[in-house]
């Protein structure tokens, strides 16, 4: 469903994605895990036509995101890591606009809007301006919107960011359900290892723009000789903080932790 070969993206001198190759099967749930700044979002942006790769090949359901943008866009739904709602519109209007942009016929649009709004417990508040929503409600609306047009492939970039346990549970239940009942292929990133373990059939661990391991959660644990995915992840990527913006105090604290181990 998704074929990626030698994918590279440079921002100036910064090699954000470095010679990445992988395949995602049709109907698979595939997780991309990696520390902050590893290149997850950049990869998703290239797969979804938002960013032009510096090198390499991509095929999404047989189409090239670079030359066949429209065909690729018709296949996919995406929940971005950063907010992308219009705060001056209501929840309903945001969804309606999305439905029109994705050519969902009017009658079906109404039905599906009601369905996704109820699914994420926003139906009662559908006529309120989104700027008045809480952070978690906005996030739920973004997810609802990503599902609205029933895409073949779903990209979820840290979908559970800022969600309470109930909403997370609901999200993953839905994702599994869509995957099993409609065969939707899912490409997700998250920083919660338990979530990845719960839903993903295969996991790629990416660090500094390179894939350092790829396999089922069980395989990753066996390969690193660890008992939990979290430990496997740390074994594969080390435990220094990657975020360039992390303060030296953070780094010191991190070192302290390592020392005590």
């Amino acid at each position, binding site marked *: 469903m998704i074929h990626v070969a030698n994918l590279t993206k440079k921002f100036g001198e910064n090699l954000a994605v470095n010679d990445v190759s992988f395949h995602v099967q049709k109907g698979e749930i595939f997780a991309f895990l990696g520390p902050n700044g590893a290149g997850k979002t950049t990869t998703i942006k290239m797969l*979804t036509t938002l*960013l032009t790769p510096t090198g390499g090949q991509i095929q999404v359901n047989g189409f090239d995101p670079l030359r066949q943008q429209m065909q690729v*866009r018709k296949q996919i739904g995406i929940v*971005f890591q950063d*907010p*992308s709602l219009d*705060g001056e*519109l209501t929840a309903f209007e945001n969804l309606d606009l999305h439905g029109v*942009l994705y050519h969902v016929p009017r009658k079906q649009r109404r039905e599906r809007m009601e369905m996704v709004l109820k699914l994420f417990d926003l139906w009662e508040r559908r006529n309120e301006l989104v700027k008045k929503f809480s952070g978690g409600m906005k996030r739920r609306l973004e997810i609802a919107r990503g599902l609205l047009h029933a895409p073949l492939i779903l990209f979820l970039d840290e979908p559970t960011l800022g969600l309470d346990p109930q909403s997370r549970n609901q999200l993953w239940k839905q994702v599994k359900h869509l995957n099993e009942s409609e065969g939707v292929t899912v490409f997700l990133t998250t920083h919660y290892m338990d979530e990845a373990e719960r839903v993903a059939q295969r996991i790629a661990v990416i660090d500094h723009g390179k894939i350092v391991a790829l396999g089922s959660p069980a395989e990753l644990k066996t390969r690193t000789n660890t008992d939990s995915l979290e430990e496997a992840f740390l074994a594969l990527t080390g435990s220094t903080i990657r975020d360039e913006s992390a303060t030296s105090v953070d780094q010191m604290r991190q070192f302290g932790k390592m020392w005590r181990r």
Partner: protein
Amino acid sequence: MKTIYILWLRELLRYKRSRVQIIASLGQPTLYLFALGFGLGPVFLKAGNGSYLQFIAPGIIAMTILFSSVFAGIGLLWDRQFGFLKETLIAPVPRLEIMIGKTLGSVTVAIIQGLLVLVVCLIAGFRPANWAVIPVALFFMVMVALVFGALGTAIGSTLQDMQGFQLVMNFLVLPLFFLSGALFPLNNLPKILDAITRVNPLTYGVDGLRAAFLGSSHFSALTDAVALAAVAFVLLWVGSYSFSKIQI
């Protein structure tokens, strides 16, 4: 078609909901109208040029449309900042349709603003020479809105953040207004000023509005219309091109 409509509707909904902004944006033209119209009126009259209020009302209407449409185009920056731009750019619809929908929205909002200011002018004592020419006036209002809406889109697509906004305001929008003949007659100008006003598209918008409202103008209404149409064509092309090149 539906894409264009829904994005047009979005602009109108956003406009309708920004009451404070509507009032604020009417404050400035009203101030100009009263301060200049009444303040400079006696001098203007003594110089044998007739009523200054009659003279600047079309200029103030053009100014309102200029500001409103440029800002609407630059609104792209806000969409970028708040992330909504991604949502539209990744949708399976041609970018040109997105750009057309947005621009038509800006044009509509600018026209509404212009008409509101026309009402303020009428209250202040402005009297069009002939009511039958309202359609002609509307035509010129639409042309001004198109020209500067497209310019705003081109700028909004190129600027990366809010930093450039002040620059655009001070070095583009205000000069466009002040050097357009909105406030002064175009005859007997110093050579340089004369040349500048002639390349400023707003000049033709203001002149066209005067031709429509007052029946007297510096150029002919036809010249104004042709000049505006040519500039609109070029800027819409530039606007669509820069919009098609946006990367997130």
